[in-house]
């Protein structure tokens, strides 16, 4: 086991980045600009305080400057370094060297943004000075620094995993994809009730109030500091991302998370989300305005979209499926074990759907919705579980049946099955009211989840829910049939291909009679 010292101080990739990114001609302009901005902000805060005003806004601007340097530009540097290393083939050289995947991850995460680290460190004296002028407690300043470090680790590992996962032929678009992922994770995941998975909104809320150390929330009913709850959420996520990055460093062609890891991640996110809302008053807990139903719905939707993402991320394409068939047939192991990355996704889809149903029901109970609404919330959880079944099995069936066109046809299927009913239903609703059009909308599970749990003033929420559940379940059964058929046909083709005529080896000609 490699020690931390070896990983960090004797890390050749880190040394490489120190050499290439800290050359004088590159560092001096950046540090000069940062010094000038931070100096101007400090002077501004000093002037404001001297004239009897407050310098809180200046403090916020300095924190924003630090965030841009460390979180935005830093994450971009990590993603770019990985994408370039993959594109040029350098990453293959590193994989071939005796360096461990952990050393590679640490080397890129610490090395690529080395210039941004330096710039961030340069701002810290100004940060302390302005904090002092604004009378921010030292503990609060320290917490902000810790928060930045944790957020940076989270964003860098996320950037690395995304950059390692982008298909090799799309590496040039890795930056755009990374931007999208960072926005999705940092901003969307910041929406209630999942505020704590990224410390960013909490962070800026704190900064906006010029750091209120006393700001407390509850976790599983226990009062806790927001920062601590964020750490409890983010630290395990960082561990998951660390393992995903390690796996991608080791194997280019495998998904970042193994199937057991994926299930662990799903359960973890579900559990801590329940912990955020359990035994708490939604209005007073930082989720104000949502109401208990809204809280349960948003938690269910979070788990639902996470389930979809995770299930799709481990669905093998036709080539990977064939790879698994051939590999395990050669080993004499049949069928392909479900824990294998190359197995069809049936097992993982079933388990994730079941877990989603359980977590959805648990979330509804934990968020404290009324007894009348509880069955409707369970109905919504059922719809979401069958919808995940539909998407998971559908993706696998389409990938196997239509091979290279599988993704295109599957996208079309999702549009027709999920989006079109919503559009038609909403158009009808806008002209004649909800009634019948609610049922039309409920052909799409998105409405099937939303309508029963929120009521939306519609008294037949349970009818819509049951209808949507029936539609989703029927669709899931049809797609299961399609999946089984496509899988059998693919396996049969793999076996037939093994028997096909191979190029005959050159055989020595028999000596001709002379």
């Amino acid at each position: 086991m490699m020690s931390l010292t070896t990983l960090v101080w004797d890390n050749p990739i880190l040394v490489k980045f120190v050499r290439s990114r800290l050359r004088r001609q590159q560092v001096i302009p950046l540090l000069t600009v940062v010094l000038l901005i931070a100096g101007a902000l400090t002077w501004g805060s000093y002037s404001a305080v001297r004239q009897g005003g407050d310098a809180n806004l200046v403090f916020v601007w300095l924190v924003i400057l630090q965030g841009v340097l460390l979180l935005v530009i830093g994450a971009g540097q990590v993603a770019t370094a990985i994408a370039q290393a993959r594109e040029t083939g350098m990453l293959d050289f590193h994989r071939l060297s005796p360096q461990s995947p952990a050393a590679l991850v640490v080397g890129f995460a610490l090395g690529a943004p080395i210039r941004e680290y330096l710039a961030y460190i340069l701002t810290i004296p100004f940060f302390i000075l302005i904090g002092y002028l604004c009378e921010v407690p030292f503990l609060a300043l320290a917490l902000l620094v810790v928060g930045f470090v944790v957020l940076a680790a989270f964003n860098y590992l996320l950037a690395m995993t995304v950059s390692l996962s982008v298909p090799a032929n799309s590496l040039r678009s890795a930056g755009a994809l990374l931007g999208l992922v960072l926005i999705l994770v940092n901003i969307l995941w910041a929406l209630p009730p999942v505020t704590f998975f990224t410390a960013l909104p909490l962070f800026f809320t704190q900064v906006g109030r010029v750091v209120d150390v006393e700001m407390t929330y509850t976790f599983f009913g226990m009062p806790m500091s927001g920062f601590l709850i964020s750490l409890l959420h983010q630290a395990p996520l960082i561990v998951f991302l660390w393992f995903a990055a390690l796996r991608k460093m080791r194997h280019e062609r495998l998904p970042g998370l193994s199937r057991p890891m994926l299930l662990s991640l799903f359960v973890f996110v579900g559990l801590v989300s329940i912990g955020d809302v359990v035994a708490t008053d939604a209005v007073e807990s930082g989720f104000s305005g949502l109401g208990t139903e809204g809280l349960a719905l948003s938690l269910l939707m979070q788990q639902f979209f996470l389930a979809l993402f995770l299930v799709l991320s481990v669905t093998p394409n036709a080539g990977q499926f064939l790879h698994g068939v051939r590999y395990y047939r050669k080993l004499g192991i049949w069928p392909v074990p479900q824990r294998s990355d190359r197995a069809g996704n049936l097992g993982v889809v079933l388990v994730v759907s079941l877990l989603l149903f359980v977590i959805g029901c648990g979330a509804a109970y934990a968020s404290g919705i009324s007894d009348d609404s509880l069955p409707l919330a369970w109905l919504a959880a059922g719809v979401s579980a069958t919808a995940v079944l539909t998407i998971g099995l559908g993706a696998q069936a389409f990938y196997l049946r239509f091979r290279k066109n599988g993704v295109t046809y599957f996208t079309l299927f999702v549009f027709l099955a999920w989006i079109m009913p919503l559009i038609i239903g909403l158009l009808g609703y806008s002209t004649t009211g909800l009634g019948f059009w609610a049922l039309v909308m409920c052909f799409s599970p998105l409405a099937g989840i939303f309508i029963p749990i929120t009521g939306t003033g519609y008294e037949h929420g349970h009818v819509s829910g049951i209808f949507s559940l029936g539609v989703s379940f029927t669709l899931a059964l049809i797609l299961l049939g399609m999946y089984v058929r496509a899988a059998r046909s693919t396996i049969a083709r793999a076996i037939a291909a093994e028997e096909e005529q191979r190029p005959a080896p050159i055989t020595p000609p028999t000596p001709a009679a002379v």
Partner: protein
Amino acid sequence: MIAVRDLRVDYDDVCAVRDISLEIADGEIFGLIGPNGAGKTTTLRALAGLLEPTYGDILLNGIDISTHREEAVRTLGFMPDSTPLYEDITVEEYLDLFAASYGIAPGERSAAIAKYLALVDLAEKRKAMTAGLSRGMKQRLLLAKTLLPEPRIVLLDEPASGMDPHGRALLRDILRQLGAEGRTVIISSHILVELSEFCTSVGVMQRGSMVVSGQVEEIAARLTEQRVWWVEVLEGEMPLLEMLDAHPLVGSVSREGDAYVFSFAGGRDEGSALLAALVGAGIRVTAFGRRKENLEELFLKIGAKEVS
């Protein structure tokens, strides 16, 4: 030593390498030849552990690369057909990065770097940025990087592409030296004439399969029962042609410059007897011998057979 058993690599539906088995002993320089798309690069990348095979065993110096990858690659040097470089560091820093990666002690790195830069004739470029090197120089730098950890097994994918004649001569000398030091080398190249100069054995790939492999001479013998011989004479051309025409083991005869070239179904003994007969008949022979087949001819023969 490299041992490969039943290696298969698939890219989705396409079988890139199909059930290859081979053994390459220490000190052997194995030329991997075949047309574009035959599966040479895929084979080398699988041997280097960069591609996960569909199935098959790869043992590098007796270490299974699938189960003990980190240990196996310690003995391996791989030079791909592209030129992966960090272009924002110097030549010396580039080599230092890999010297450190392979665990060469800090005190020994400088000497090792100097040694290999001198070997590939890049000592003067030590402080130059890698981005400023020509394509041939980059290839030589990659070669130095490949040899820096002193690997027991060296895999070279089209190493001569982009090199000038000087670079190729260096490469030739280095390969001969590696063979003499008992290291195992696999080299793929399209420049078959050059390969024939230093390869001790070859494998010919087509459509993912190894259609033939072994010593160059062996393959030549397997491919044709009638080897090509040649003879040059000072005078007596007519009696020579009459004797060759009458000889039961001689096939077609043609003239190439000053030499008469003929196919001959006999071995060394029969060849010796023919020479004695020619001399005995008063024909003034100045040169006589079996023409060595070069790889290009072998390759074309194998290709022609496959097509037919």
